[in-house]
């Protein structure tokens, strides 16, 4: 039982938290700008590398570097929108999807040019896990990741429900034309969507780096589970995306837990879980688990 919790459940929640942070942005961008943002994973990578640079240059811990990396990633996202997405805004959104596919490549190769392709760690050395009740072992980085995500989820909930900007975002996500008719400045809402999405992506990227290592494919590899999480939670429902991320993260770890000596899937097929969940959703419930919408 403790083995299950220590080696499957807690890593699952950790991974799920990372997916959740990324999926919030994917879901908001899909809801408000109406396109699947293929460069979102690479925004995560961008955040992770900006933090890496700060760790190297200033010698600070990655958690201290995080706010600056988030700000940097937000600026990158706003620039990307200005340069590559906004010029295509009036066209069918699929053109923007293609553009974002290209942006993913641009970000990744830029990172490869600047930092090379080897993997790096923020701080070398083994961290001893904390031990509770004799047998519950949690690495402190897992506690940091999970508790930060929890705090973000609560903050996001209040922001969306009660702030003016949060409500405007939900309104634009519901119906962009009506939002304009009601006098909402959609460009401002879009800018804010990028800022939020990019900050959370940077956070997620840094968490991946804390948990494993920083490498140039870090974010691209997470794109599929993040899409699946956003679909699971219902497009345009950031809180749903958080739940979706957790479900997929936990499911990916649990499928390899041996029940009576056999596990459902070999660990090397972990990343197939997200795809299977995505296919099942697309077949039976494309609007997601919660009251999400199906974009046309």
């Amino acid at each position: 039982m403790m083995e299950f919790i220590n080696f499957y459940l807690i890593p699952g929640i950790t991974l799920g938290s990372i997916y959740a942070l990324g999926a919030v942005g994917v879901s908001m961008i899909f809801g408000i700008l109406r396109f699947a943002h293929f460069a979102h994973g690479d925004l995560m990578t961008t955040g992770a590398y900006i933090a890496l640079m700060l760790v190297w240059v200033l010698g600070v811990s990655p958690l201290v570097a995080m706010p600056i990396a988030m700000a940097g990633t937000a600026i990158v996202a706003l620039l990307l929108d200005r340069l590559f997405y906004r010029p295509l805004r009036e066209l069918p959104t699929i053109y923007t999807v293609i553009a974002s596919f290209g942006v993913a490549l641009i970000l990744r190769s830029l990172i490869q040019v600047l930092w090379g392709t080897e993997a790096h760690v923020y701080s070398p050395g083994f961290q001893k896990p904390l031990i509770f009740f004799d047998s519950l072992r949690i690495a402190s980085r897992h506690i940091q990741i999970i508790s930060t995500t929890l705090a973000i989820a609560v903050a996001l909930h209040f922001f969306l429900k009660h702030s003016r900007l949060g409500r405007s975002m939900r309104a634009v996500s519901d119906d962009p034309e009506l939002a304009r008719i009601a006098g909402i400045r959609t460009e401002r809402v879009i800018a804010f969507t990028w800022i939020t999405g990019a900050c959370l992506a940077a956070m997620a990227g840094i968490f991946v780096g804390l948990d494993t290592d920083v490498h140039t494919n870090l974010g691209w590899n997470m794109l599929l589970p993040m899409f699946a999480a956003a679909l699971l939670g219902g497009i345009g429902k950031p809180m749903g995306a958080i739940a979706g991320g957790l479900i997929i993260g936990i499911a990916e770890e649990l499928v390899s837990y041996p029940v009576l000596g056999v596990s459902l899937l070999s660990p090397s097929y972990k990343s197939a879980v997200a795809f299977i969940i995505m296919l099942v959703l697309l077949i039976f419930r494309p609007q997601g688990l919660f009251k999400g919408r199906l974009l046309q």
Partner: protein
Amino acid sequence: MTADGLFFYFVAFMTMGGIYAILCLALNMQWGFGGLFNAGIAGFYAVGAYTGAILTSARSASHVGGFDLPIVVGLIVAGILSGLVGWAIARICVRLKADYLAMASIGIAEIIRLIVVNEEWLTNGSLGIAGIPRPLEKLFNGREAELVFVVFVWILVAVTYLVAQRLRVSPWGRVMRAIRDNDVAAASIGKDIQRFQTETFIVGAVFMGIAGALSAHYFKFFSPDATEPLLVTFLTWVMLIAGGSGNNRGAIAGALIIWAIWSLTEMLTNQLPTEWATRSAYIRMLLIGLFLQFVLQRFRSGLVPEKPPELRPR
């Protein structure tokens, strides 16, 4: 380089260029005519390549088969299997907004990559499959074989072109091209359109599989490295958008031109000292990414444009 060397460099160029032309025509069926975004070209390509490799290579201890079958059989089965994967994914996704298919197709490519890497009994994992034959190998050798192969590839380019052309001039093709530029109208026409979209997606997938098999025969050795999404999926997209989506001749021209730029810049950067050579590979990708953005914004209708009337906004 001697004139002879130059000529065979050109033959090698035309061979890969031809394989890319098939991929590009196939993508044009899916996107140019069907308006379907396929971000998993590498997956279909891999299915075709491994099918061809396993069916036509000689018996081997390191993977299933080989079955030593004729290359034509290998190509046909490669197309069929790849088409089946395309059918499954299209069935699920065509009724949804194109973005959903885009997400699912990324997944398909990922799953196929996982299978290829992990199921060693089937594909010999990351070590890859060796000893894949080329057509008429016994009759010709050395440089003549290269010439035979390039002719073989371009015969298949011609076949793909004819099929694509038929799709384009069919009444469906015309409607579809109109619809590609206006999602909303498509929704109201409904079920028949979805059938046509499914068909274009499957036919496109078939030819992507065939292109995969062809490249396996050309390389004679195929490993997961050759299905790098960047080199397959991304480059094909850039080729199609640059060439002019919806237009088959544009698709072929785009494939050749982008492949020429890609190969020439590779030749140039290979002259650099090693440390710079690796780095410049990324600079080339960066430039291709920027080039795509440029084409999308300024040159969307491609080399062979189908120009819609200008909008006159207030």
